[in-house]
């Protein structure tokens, strides 16, 4: 529970900086994409090559049209009828190349799909391996949102890019290109006619696409604001309605929406005319009349045949399609770049250093030596812990007390190496914790979030000791005061934890305690709040915690002074510093500690 206020910039102010970064950003994105795709790059090249061959083969029907056309025209000019052999020969060639094209196309798709499966597997594997070594403090809800988005959206985008685009994209570009070349082969003048309207179209489109990258980023920023206002509008709706402020929150949303509208209008409105004109240049009748008109003159001159004109006219109709696909793929490439960047960032999350030259703890004394810590790694990052020093004697209970946000949890979790201190050291039995191999066998923890994966209760309890016998499992569950409730479930220990199993938060807590009992680490970090989550099973959780703590070296994150009256040592923490250390009676003289006690004795009606 961090309470420090971050001075947040006005979200709309961020737009300006975003824009200037666009170019660099796009470059990074492209690089990430290339890097990410490296393991399957040769496969993709093969896929593209095959797709290109199949795209070239798509010209054959038009060749057949011209060749058969010549036969037919010859027949029309004479009395001899159609040369059946020649027509049939071309029909056979047509059929043959058609089958060949299908075969190649199929192999191309197969290759890219296999590459996609391989890469998807690789990315997920790398992600998982990374997570195993990332500091635990990294796993906040924001970051798990990022992980979810990466897995659901970004890998999907990459899938499109790897499995589909190399084949479809290459095909859509090579085919019209090959057709165009063929048009020029038929007759260069007809080839020119076929692309006659294109220059104007390209000019119109390049006008309308100018600065699109930057504008798109700006649009995204503004849409992001609209989206944030909607979230605020909806999440705050109770408050909004309770205080009769529907108009106000609604207005904030509408303002953001209007701002987006204005921007979008200003951007798009002038382009509509250009773009509509450009697109109209591709209108079928226009292309036809240019091609047939020019072609008729060439036929009249005796340079080409009517079949040639027909073929190139039809080719002219197809060429713009390739351009449209090309533009679409530029856009897709940009999107994929952003996805690749997000994935790469996740895959490059900084990790904890490997335990170097292993040290073996002797005894279970824990020493915090001048430990300082900040959540950010920057030089001038705000310190969450400032020069914290104290000692836990083996077999005793130490409680951390202090106001919320004082750093109690941070201190406790550093002992379990949720992260390494920025300076100072934590020793267990004389050995620095970052050099202890299998630290988990030495330091265990039961915190507020019980973290039960959706596996069977048996597997959850034995997570730390897979070889535990049934008797040991039952014993742990009994000690955690949850045995009866597990056995009452229809599937008992085989019940898979998750939505719909009907296990309460309190029961989940006790299962987590059973898990810790089996691991049986000599040093334990406990959060007292676990006992307060669920009023009705508080008592049982407390008993289980007390059992678990027996004969262990315990560091307790305490919230109610009452719970810690009898502990061996109390460490009073405020603003990341240790104010005092001592027993309850020793600390009663400390004003900070006394204040904590005072607040709990305040009661309703002043009576107790």
């Amino acid at each position: 529970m961090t309470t420090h206020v971050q001075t947040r910039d006005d979200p709309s102010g961020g737009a300006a900086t975003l824009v200037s970064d666009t170019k660099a950003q796009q470059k990074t994105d492209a690089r990430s994409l290339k890097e990410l795709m490296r393991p399957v790059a040769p496969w993709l090249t093969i896929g593209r090559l095959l797709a290109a061959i199949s795209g070239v083969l798509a010209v054959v029907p038009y060749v057949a049209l011209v060749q058969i056309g010549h036969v037919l025209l010859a027949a029309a000019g004479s009395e001899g009828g159609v040369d059946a052999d020649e027509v049939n020969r071309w029909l056979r060639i047509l059929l043959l190349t058609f089958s060949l094209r299908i075969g190649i196309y199929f192999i191309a798709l197969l290759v890219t799909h296999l590459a996609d499966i391989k890469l998807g597997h690789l990315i997920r594997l790398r992600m998982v391996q990374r997570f195993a070594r990332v500091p635990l403090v990294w796993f906040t809800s924001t970051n798990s949102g990022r992980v979810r988005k990466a897995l659901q959206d970004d890998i999907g985008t990459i899938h499109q890019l790897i499995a589909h685009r190399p084949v479809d994209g290459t095909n859509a570009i090579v085919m019209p290109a090959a057709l165009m070349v063929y048009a020029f082969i038929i007759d260069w003048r007809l080839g020119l006619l076929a692309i006659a309207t294109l220059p104007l179209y390209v000019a119109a489109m390049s006008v309308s696409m100018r600065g699109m990258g930057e504008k798109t980023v700006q649009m995204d920023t503004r849409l992001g604001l609209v989206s944030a206002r909607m979230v605020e509008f909806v999440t705050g709706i109770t408050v909004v309605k309770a205080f009769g402020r529907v108009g106000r929150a609604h207005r904030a949303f509408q303002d953001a929406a209007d701002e987006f509208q204005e921007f979008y209008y200003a951007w798009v409105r002038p382009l509509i005319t250009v773009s509509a004109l450009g697109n109209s240049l591709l209108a079928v009748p226009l292309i036809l009349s240019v091609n047939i008109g020019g072609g008729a003159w060439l036929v009249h001159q005796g340079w080409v045949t009517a079949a040639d004109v027909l073929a190139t006219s039809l080719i002219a109709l197809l060429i713009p399609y390739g351009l449209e696909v090309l533009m679409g793929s530029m856009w897709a490439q940009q999107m994929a770049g952003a996805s690749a960047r997000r994935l790469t960032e996740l895959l490059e999350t900084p990790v904890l250093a490997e335990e170097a030259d292993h040290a073996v703890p002797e005894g279970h004394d824990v020493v915090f030596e001048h430990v300082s810590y900040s959540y950010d790694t920057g030089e001038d990052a705000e310190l969450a812990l400032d020069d914290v020093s104290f000692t836990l004697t083996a077999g005793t209970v130490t409680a951390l007390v202090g106001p919320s946000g004082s750093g109690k949890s941070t201190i406790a979790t550093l002992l379990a190496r949720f992260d390494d201190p920025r300076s100072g050291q934590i020793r267990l039995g004389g050995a620095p914790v970052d050099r202890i191999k299998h630290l988990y066998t030495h330091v265990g923890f039961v915190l507020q979030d019980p973290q039960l994966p959706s596996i069977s209760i048996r597997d959850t309890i034995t997570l730390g000791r897979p070889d535990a016998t049934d008797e040991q499992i039952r014993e742990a569950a009994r000690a955690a005061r949850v045995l009866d409730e597990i056995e009452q479930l229809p599937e008992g220990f085989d019940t898979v934890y998750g939505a719909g199993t009907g296990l309460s938060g309190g029961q989940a807590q006790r299962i987590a305690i059973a898990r810790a009992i089996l691991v049986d680490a000599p040093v334990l970090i406990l959060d007292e709040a676990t006992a307060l989550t669920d009023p009705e099973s508080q008592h049982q959780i407390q008993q289980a915690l007390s059992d678990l703590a027996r004969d262990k070296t315990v560091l307790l994150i305490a919230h109610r002074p009452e719970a810690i009256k009898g502990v061996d040592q109390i460490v009073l923490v405020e603003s990341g510093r240790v104010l005092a250390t001592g027993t309850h009676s020793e600390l009663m003289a400390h004003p900070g500690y006394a204040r904590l006690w005072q607040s709990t004795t305040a009661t309703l009606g002043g009576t107790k």
Partner: protein
Amino acid sequence: MSLPLIDILPRLRRMISEPEALRPALIVAALSGLVEGLSLAALLPAIGSLASGEPVWGLQIGGWLVVLALLAVTCFGLHYLQEQRTYAVALDFLRSIHRLVGDQVAKQPLGWFARPSSGRLSRMVSAELMNAGEIFAHMIGPLVARITAAIVIVIAAWLWHPLLGLVLTIAAPVFVIITVTSTSFMRRGSAIHEPEEIKLAARIVEYAQCQGALRSCGRSDDFPPLGAALEDTRSAKTRAQWIETAGMLLSGVVTQGVIVALIAVSGSLAVSGTLEPIAALAFIGLALRFTSTLSTITENAMSLESRRPLLDAIDEVLTAEPLPEPASPAHLPAPGTIELEDVSFAYGPTAEPVLQHVSLSVPRGSMVALVGPSGSGKSTIARLVCRFYDADSGTVRVGGLPVTEQTTEQLMSQLSMVFQDVYLFDDTLEANIAIGREGASREEIRDAADLAGVTEIAERLPAGWQSRVGEGGRALSGGERQRVAIARALLKRSPIVLLDEATSALDVENEANIVAAVEHLRRQATVLIIAHRLDTIAAADQIVALTEHGSVEAQGTHAELIAAGGTYARFWDRLHRAQGWHIV
């Protein structure tokens, strides 16, 4: 394939401010398609006359060129008009949809928001909006145009030669059927691997979220369910790959396949002498174009289809029915009271009932504590009082009048809510309190803040009262947010306060502040409190004890309920023992 268009159009109409502009836009698109079709049809006689040098249908090649040129000019104009019109509709959509969705959201009852709707709605008005906008800008116009063109081509083919008309008429459905089949292949493939991928994603997220537990058990390198999920996904994808690739292959070859078939047919017809050679030639050309028209139609229809969920989602919001409420506020016979009479409620038609025949009454000026195990429906009672939902049966009265007979404003003006999920606006600390009552003086705001313990927060923060609290109040802890909510309630001075104590349990200082504030609130208002602390329960005038099945076991004073024994006495005992716990 025109089916989706028919049922999508009425929805589109609802999403724009000028629905009457949609029809002319589509008519222009159809006209431009008509001209396009005519020009392709003119290809037949034009090529015929060009090849033979003789007039066809009474016109020489020169004449046909004039016809083509006229069609070209007309189509250029129409096409330009069509683009302008459809863009205008698309812009209208983008402009209107924000307002329409916003208005609709503002009108919804609170229960409507209980579903995880904020993510869905925010995506709807941002990222997905542009995708939906494309329907208007780039999809419906061309779709209408191409369909018209295809129809014109088929008709022209019949006129040119009945046999060819027949060939095209048959080709169209074959084409559509193969395309649909290939799509269903791809869907079957996805059906095999998508569930596995979703499971795997869930496992990886779980792996990240449970990383602490896994490491505490030495399992971060080797978590078998995750390894299994990775393998399952890989093998499912490999299996699905053949089906999916086959589907894509089918869709890839269909265009070319139909072309080959049409060329083969007309070639053979020419060889057999059934068809004039030149007619056959022209027809091959037309067939080539016809298939690409067909494939554009299916592509368009499919992308339209793939965006259907977007439209469905928007439509669901636009057509959501608000809870019925009267037009004007009514007279309140018993201000400051709450009464539930035989109320039953479940969070869905098939869900377990949360409340069963609950009756309770909160007299004016009293403090009543709701007590019971988790799942006994304490929070649900508070939600029904605020009319987040309507009860399935029975009556909820606030101020003596059933909540269903009050306007939202009237009901809300009587209530202050201090719940667990306190929401703060991304504004200053002071503004977040001031929201409690419009026109409250600075002094009143500071007094309320003092009482609720917000002044301490302000003193700690760098910018004091003017500190921004972040979106949703992120910059403050849960307990601090609750204090701000209490300050709002104090400022609002509503006759009734609903309070959930739960989060205060975590934080000692907070507890003290809340205790003090509740003490103040009960002097100025009726208080219904979801209580967890012994002191609060003991201090209440009345206690309503709920069973775990959501029914009222008893209502009375603490002494009466203890004397009666039962659930409340047991609960009290447990709570008592829990609060006295110390670890050693």
